């Protein structure tokens, strides 16, 4: 508020003139606002003191329905407001995206790299004969470190340097891409949820110190991604740099997060390992820190970006527990096995006619490419087949040569991670999330990776259902004729996109099944008719069994209200219970949307408060966080409590120091 004192006078001028027009009550909302501004002043004053009372009174007053208030449309153009440029910054490990709120894409992307960390006036990069001495920098596990802004392990990390990097990147974005002066502007930072507090604090210190924004709001990137996809709930699979993080967002709230180290960094390292092996260097796998690097990070990263691809899904059953060899049930299981047997034997070309587009053609002459490598001790070029080039991706994200039970918690393969995240979700949340899977993050560029993860997940779901128990005993139980029927139906419920690709699978599947997400989006809920009774049975028999796809939907208050308020849209039920992937515009665009729509953030940090207290000033009280969350979830533009100095503020999901 302090920033805009001059405008206050404008308001003072306008306010008294407004109430003169007292025409019919209907009108546009803007019209109505002016009418009674005289007693609004009084109300506002009173409002300060007795907010609590009024809240209660309001609720009583409105009775059954929620109190409504005419919020004028948000697209009313106001020249005064348009002047204020909100800056949205999306912090990633490798890059920072900066732009104005309301834009569809960031104005500039700044990547971190060694040349950015040079002194100003050091132009050795431009010398024709300069070659970076990456070898000495890579010593001690620092290979590729300087391409990162931070790392999740803050031990031994110089936080001041993180701040410096943030400052330099944002300054570069300001001067090079945003073309703005250094007037203080409000900032909105889109930050991954799992960011350690010291890093967040260092970044905020730097922003507040160098750019003097009046406020900095924090948005969580999974939620931003969800918003940028147009949905309220989603399963965000962030194939990021340090980690792959699977976050389940339900009604704009993060309800579950799981992470694995299988991310872009590992992919680059695997690429290096692969190339080094091809070059004839023997690597000792057990000592990762002391690993000798024969190629520069830049080159490996480049190759990983350019040529590494991901093989399509093949349902080989060797490492996993064997699925039933014969079609177990006529309706449902058959569908899955038809597809599996299709891809089971890729060498026999006769059976592959159905799924032609799905897989690489069986290689009579393996297709190769030549990769020039320049950063080694001596330049070399490698002739590699594309089959080989899919190895790094395979090892990074799936490691399918190992059994699924052999992984530690921090290195779960991505598809398993997605499955487990879905599995641990409550029934309703899962039903919504599984049909809103969003892939985001840098590794989505790996060709075929998203599809592969998606197929792997749907394969696990087909194999196991939503049952945390699996294994031989489970299989035996499943062979039990009594349960067979339900299992079959379950798998049809979660039939995914790729069934639609094979024509005969579509023929086999029962008519109730929605085969493709595209067609289903407009239709009614895919709940088959026999669902309620069957689902009920399943839940009776074993306590843990949750049939996400077919259970009776509980009455969702929000849906109910939507149906009431907007009858036109009530015909379209949100799709659930079906695996489906949707596209998002990414965290930055989400942050831009949220900010543009003037949705307040849970965590808005005032400059003065930060200067006084730093992170320690953030409130820890869960109640406050909850209250803020509540306010935000309501998507109400006006719900910000007065931000006086005493007002507790919070870092929201980022916790407190």
């Amino acid at each position, binding site marked *: 508020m302090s920033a805009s004192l001059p*405008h206050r006078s404008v308001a003072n001028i*306008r306010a008294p003139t407004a109430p003169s027009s007292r025409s019919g009550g209907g009108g546009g*909302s803007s019209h109505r*606002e*002016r009418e009674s501004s005289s007693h609004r002043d009084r*109300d*506002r004053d009173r*409002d300060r003191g007795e907010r609590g009372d009024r*809240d209660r009174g*309001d609720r009583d007053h*409105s*009775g059954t329905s*929620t109190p*409504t208030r*005419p*919020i004028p*449309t*948000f*697209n009313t153009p106001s020249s005064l*407001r348009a002047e204020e440029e909100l800056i949205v910054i999306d912090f990633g490990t490798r890059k920072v995206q900066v732009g104005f709120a309301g834009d*569809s894409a*960031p*104005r500039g992307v700044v990547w971190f790299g060694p040349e950015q960390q040079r*002194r*100003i006036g050091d132009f050795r990069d431009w010398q024709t004969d*300069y070659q970076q*001495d990456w070898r*000495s920098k890579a*010593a001690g596990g620092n290979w590729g470190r300087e391409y990162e802004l931070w790392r999740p392990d803050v031990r031994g990390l*110089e*936080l001041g340097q993180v701040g410096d990097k943030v400052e330099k990147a944002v300054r570069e974005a300001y001067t090079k*891409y945003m*073309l703005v*002066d250094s007037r203080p502007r409000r900032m909105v930072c889109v930050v991954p949820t799992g960011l350690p507090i010291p890093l967040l604090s260092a970044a905020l*210190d730097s922003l507040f110190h160098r750019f003097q924004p009046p406020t900095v709001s924090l948005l969580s990137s999974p939620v931003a991604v969800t918003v*940028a996809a*147009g949905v309220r709930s989603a399963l965000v699979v962030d194939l990021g740099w340090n980690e792959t993080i699977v976050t389940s967002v339900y009604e704009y709230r993060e309800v579950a997060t799981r992470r694995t180290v299988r991310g872009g960094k590992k992919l680059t390292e695997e690429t290096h390992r692969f190339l080094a092996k091809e070059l004839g260097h023997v690597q000792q796998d057990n000592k990762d820190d002391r690993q000798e690097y024969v190629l520069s990070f830049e080159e490996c*990263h480049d190759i990983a970006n*350019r*040529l590494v691809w991901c093989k399509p899904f093949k349902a080989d059953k060797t490492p996993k527990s064997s699925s039933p060899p014969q079609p177990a049930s006529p309706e449902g299981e058959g569908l899955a096995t038809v597809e599996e047997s299709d891809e089971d034997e890729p060498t026999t070309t006769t059976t592959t006619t159905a799924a032609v*587009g799905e897989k690489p053609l069986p290689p009579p002459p393996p297709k190769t490419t030549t990769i*020039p490598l320049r950063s080694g001790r001596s330049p070399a070029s490698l002739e590699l087949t594309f089959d080989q080039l899919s190895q790094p991706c395979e090892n990074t994200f799936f490691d399918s040569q190992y059994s699924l039970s052999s992984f530690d918690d921090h290195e779960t393969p991505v598809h398993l991670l997605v499955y487990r995240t879905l599995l641990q979700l409550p029934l309703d949340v899962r039903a919504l999330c599984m049909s809103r899977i969003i892939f985001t993050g840098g590794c*989505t560029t790996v*060709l075929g990776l998203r599809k592969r993860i998606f197929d792997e997940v749907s394969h696990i779901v087909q194999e196991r259902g939503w049952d945390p128990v699996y294994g031989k005993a489970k299989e035996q139980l499943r062979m039990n004729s009594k349960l067979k029927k339900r299992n079959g139906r379950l798998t049809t419920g979660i039939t995914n*996109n790729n069934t639609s*690709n094979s024509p005969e699978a579509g023929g086999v599947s029962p008519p109730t099944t929605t085969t493709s997400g*595209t067609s289903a989006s407009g239709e009614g809920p895919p709940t088959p008719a026999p669902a309620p009774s069957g689902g009920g049975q399943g839940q009776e028999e074993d306590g843990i069994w949750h049939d996400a796809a077919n259970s009776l939907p509980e009455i969702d208050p929000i849906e109910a209200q*939507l149906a009431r*308020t*907007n009858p036109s849209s009530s015909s379209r039920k949100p799709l659930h219970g079906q695996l*489906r992937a*949707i*596209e998002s*515009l990414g965290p930055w*665009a989400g942050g831009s*949307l949220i900010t543009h729509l003037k949705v307040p953030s849970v965590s808005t940090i005032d400059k003065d408060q930060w200067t006084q207290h*730093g992170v320690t000033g953030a409130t820890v009280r869960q109640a406050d966080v909850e209250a803020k969350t509540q306010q935000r979830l*309501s998507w109400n533009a*006006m719900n*910000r409590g007065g931000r006086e100095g005493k007002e507790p503020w919070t870092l929201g999901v980022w916790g407190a120091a």
Partner: protein
Amino acid sequence: MFGNNRLPAFHPGLTQSRIRDTTTGNRLWFPGVRSPPSESSPSDSDPPNDQLPLPITPEDLYDTPMAPFNPYTYIRCPCSELNPYAKRTPDVTAQGLSRAAQDDDDHTFDPRAARSNYSLYPLEYLSFCEDCHQIRCPRCVAEEIVCYYCPNCLFEVPSSNIRSEGNRCTRSCFQCPICIGPLAVNHVETPPDPNQLLSPDHAASSHSGSYLLSCSYCNWSSTEIGIKFDKPNSIHMQLAKLRNGGETRLTAKERKERRKEQGGGGGGSNNGQGEEDLDTLLDMETQFANLKSFYQNQLSDANGTGKAGGDASAALGNLGFDAPASLSRIMSLYTGSSSLHDKKSKSRPGTMREALAPSEGLQLASLDETSAITALQDFESTTGLDAYSSTASTTQLQSQTPYLGASPLHGLTRFTSSLRPIPYLLRTKRSKRCPQCRHIISKPESKVTTTRFRIRLIAGNYIPTITIKQLIIPGLTPPPMPNLPPDTIAPLQPAQFVLTFKNPIFESVRVTLATPATTPGRFPSKVTILCPQFEIDSNTDVWEEALKDNNTSSASTSTSQQNLSSSTGPEGGPGRKRAGTLRPGTAGGASLAGEELGPEVGKVWEKGRNWTSIVIEVIPASLVQTAKRDGKGPIKEDEDVLEIPMFVRIEWEAEAPEDEIMPGLSGAKGGNKDGGKEKRELAYWCVLGLGGLRGRCKRGFVCGRS
């Protein structure tokens, strides 16, 4: 400390000439070429600057490195010490951070520390605030934009366009996506088609698509991505409508118009069906626009219909409350306080559904990327080119602008065929202000094509410049080790360097130097400043100096001059001669005494009109031995350069400020009259890069790896 003091303001003419002086002459990077004590013309009074490069012979005064190591000086802006949060951060991040404890104010500055690179600047990059008497670096100035322009066509862009049209040139300026060279619009020479020649109707169509963008450096042309243009001008607009391959697309504006038409026809239903089949595969721009309008509709719907459709009593009852809400909205509208901390009382659950159709911004992911995979794999067989070279490199991708016309999946550009010409980023001319006193530090002319500055207070006009030379006196300096590359400082042997401080201001300046006894960091070298305190004479005018010279001491020194030159040979003779000439009684005499033994402790090496040289002695650490002993792995890049942190404190007496009377330009005038003096001081760290500790090969690799 000296907040309100002012330097005497200079006549504009003088400032100008000084700027020119510094920019031409004062290069820190040319040690071999410009040696302060050059014997060419004894009457020359400003040797470090105004000398032309002399032909250098091996027997020249000082060692001139053959290999390209140039000694350098970096100055650390004091602003990096002023972080208000610096103190607090260690508390917060507390445990496990071993380094936090060391982060005291008192510890010497380590130029090799991770953070130092961010606060060090060459003198040329620094400004100086005359009112705060403080160095200002690019990090600690407030900037204002004077104008926006395209660096290619040099057209000025009005600031209103920046917000609406983006930060790139919207005319015809493009960079090559392959090599970032500038692209030129060229005419396509097509062989005349007889059919079209015959029929005049088709003449127009043959005309269309007859221009292309081509790179004269790498021969890339826009036909490689299947794009041709109808007109040779406003390429940007044409390109926005074209996808790679020549397919047209609707721009956002057209889409909006079309939507409007449909909205008008279809009764305003926002999920009109006709629109959906326009494009089921949304591009990013459209998806964003759809999402935005969807959310806006939802928000207004939720509120609007809630009132209308809800039960009447509630709506009526709420009327009283509506008032303050909308008032506060108006208030907030005009007070400009945005949503981020809008003050309004009550949250009510506005409900909104999720997007369900592409028209609302929902985009189903088509995960099937097999076409791209097969394209990648079959590239060689179809085109005969290598698949590797068909893909775009990381740097090429990073310099691409986000192409909003692509759908998210296709936005993940991979092949060089999907790269697009890069419109030039606009640039700005900026004026700079001191963030504390708001005085202008630098202000360029607003016209794009002029490079002149109206105001420019560069630090080189206010603080002494430092030039570094290695001192080699035959007989005294040990001969270079035979196995070392020429530009190397031999380890564990004392080496001497001459630091020449040149005073740019009109007052004589007292300099105090300090340096840690051993350089911080992994390879501690011993450093001794032989003369840590000295004075530099004022930068008086040249002719004044010449007059003074004639009057006072030319006769008396001529004899000693001859003595000197005969005794010391060519090395350093003239320089010291001058020192003796100018100040016979002071430092010059001292250096005379010690002249035969080389540099002497506590004595100035030599002295000129506005410059003073001192000697610094270094015993470099042995890189190889240390690296072997401490086991911290190989020597990193730049660790083999001998860098010395040095704390420089300069004091001078300036005319007393008369800010109270007239804060403007009249300082110089008034100061001359009343003559009141006032002490000023300035202190900062700087880093001297003296030389390489081991040689560098041509390719930038560091030799001598152990």
